């Protein structure tokens, strides 16, 4: 069952799932999200493989309560084991998963990475800013756009 969030998305706090192998970046992202008062639950995975395990509720992500289906995915591009590109490709080829907006958040600003990301169905591509203030700005922008302006499909939290 699919619910729609409207401009009042804040009322339905879906979780945000971030896949990034760098603990510093995960920490900085969490700080920046807190800084701009995003109250959505943040979940973290360390690479593309863990991301797919999470989304498909495999292994240690079996429990839907502990691993709720995210409303938004922040995806690092260069990760070990399974890269952002590979993970994105898999997500977008799964009928069940492809409606989840994926925002690529990476250090790369290489033109071919940007092109490939959109080619594979990324919903937006953001190069990680150099400063923390910049990162806060990005998160604020994300909040404004994805949590307030646009409507995104929300799955039943208990569906698989």
């Amino acid at each position, binding site marked *: 069952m699919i619910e729609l969030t409207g401009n009042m998305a804040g009322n339905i706090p879906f979780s945000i799932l971030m896949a990034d192998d760098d603990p510093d970046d995960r920490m900085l992202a969490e700080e920046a999200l807190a800084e701009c008062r995003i109250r959505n639950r943040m979940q973290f995975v360390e690479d593309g493989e863990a991301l797919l395990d999470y989304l498909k509720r495999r292994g240690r992500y079996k429990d839907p309560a502990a691993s709720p289906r995210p409303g938004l995915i922040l995806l690092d591009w260069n990760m070990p084991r399974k890269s952002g590109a590979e993970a994105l490709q898999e997500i977008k080829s799964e009928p069940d998963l492809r409606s989840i907006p994926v925002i690529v958040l990476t250090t790369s*600003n*290489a*033109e071919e990475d*940007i092109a490939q990301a959109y080619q594979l169905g990324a919903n937006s591509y953001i190069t*990680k*800013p150099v*400063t*923390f203030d910049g990162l806060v*700005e990005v998160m604020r922008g994300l909040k404004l*756009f994805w949590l307030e302006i646009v409507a995104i499909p929300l799955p039943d939290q208990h569906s698989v």
Partner: protein
Amino acid sequence: MQSELSVGGEVTNPQRLAALKRTGLPDTPPEPAFDRLTALARRTLNVPVVLLSLVDDRRQFFKSQSGLPDSLASIRETPLSHSFCRYVVAGQSPFSVEDARQHPLVRDNGAVDDLGVIAYLGVPLRDPEGQILGSFCAIDHVPRHWTTDEAASLTDFADLARAELTLRLALDEARKAQERLCRAERAMRQQAESCQRQHDALQEFVSTASHDLREPLRKILQFGNLIRRQPGLPPSAGQYLERLLAAGDRMHRLLADLLTYSRLASLAQPTRPVYQERVVADAVDILEARYPGLRTAVRVAPLPTVEGDPNQLHQLFVQLLDNAGKFRRTDVPLLIDIAAEPVCRGQVHYWQVTVRDNGIGFEAGHAERIFGVFERLHAREDFPGTGMGLAICRRIAERHSGTLTATGAPNVGAAFVLLLPVEPSEKVEIADDFADKKTNARVVSGNPEGVAPPPNFASAPNTIDVGVPTPVVSPTSSEER
């Protein structure tokens, strides 16, 4: 029997023997080209035997023969003791014998009894340089008076043989030259490939290094930012932190420019026609915010359309204009003239585009130095920048098979001269992974085809280069050349 020494020095002349060897004819099988000549001469002169005889210091070798008995025809040589031809060589002139048995020079020659040589007429066979190789000769088994006509015919045949030889040697020489050329070309190609590989490896290294170094630097800056937000930081610690952040920010810009530079390895393919006037106008628009009044300061004469990478050329003009704006004089209004004219350099036609300003200029001796990587002529606090701008410009020009040079005079101005070929380069360079246009930190949303500002926009004012901190305290150790 006569010893060969008595026939004179020419037979054993080392230069002659060397020339004979050079012909490549001794000990080679019979060939139709020469056999036709001896057969034709035999019919023409109506004699039983005609020989094309090559004389070295111990034997005569018949490169071609017509009419010899089978036994001798298969051996194709005799010792000099059985040679009349050696006298043609020794005398370097025709040698004619009516009846060998009566001739003082050859009556004891082995050929008289063993081979039945009674009458002999031989004319010199020479190589292209005139070195005597042997004799073209006619032989009869009975006494014979040789007519002038016969001698003339035989000389003609000898000349035909020489012509054949000349052609062969020339052809041989051409083949050898071609082989040498091929070898040289192969060697050159290998060297070029090896150079290219080294260059690629170095490029990859610089690219990876500057990219990977930015990663930890970003953390340093971001955690530094977080520390700055902590309340109750002692003032001195705050000041150190600002210096630390300023230095980190500078390093970030240096690495960004280095990355841009290293990524300019190749011209993005395919190239497109680039309307330079448009490119310049865009560059002026972008820089107007940084240098108010720039639009009126720039005078642009008609500029040609060139074949190239529009992003790189845009970047080049942004950099040149930024340079003119940055190094303007404070006491006179800034003027920048941009004009183009066709020129010819070494048979290649170029557009020469000149960007001339009335700024602070530079000493003539620095005209090359300013294009160096990380090269600066001024203290950083006087003129900001990484010292990469002109290096990037020159690289772009070179990527377009062109050049970029400069002239200048202190407090008069500087002129940057860009040469771009009129005809696009035929050299096709494969753009490497990083060769395409790059952009700096920016947010791209929803529209992959969207705004793609060219690479060096890191410092351009309209870039969404999110939050590079402005140094509160100028770094102290900023003195550079």
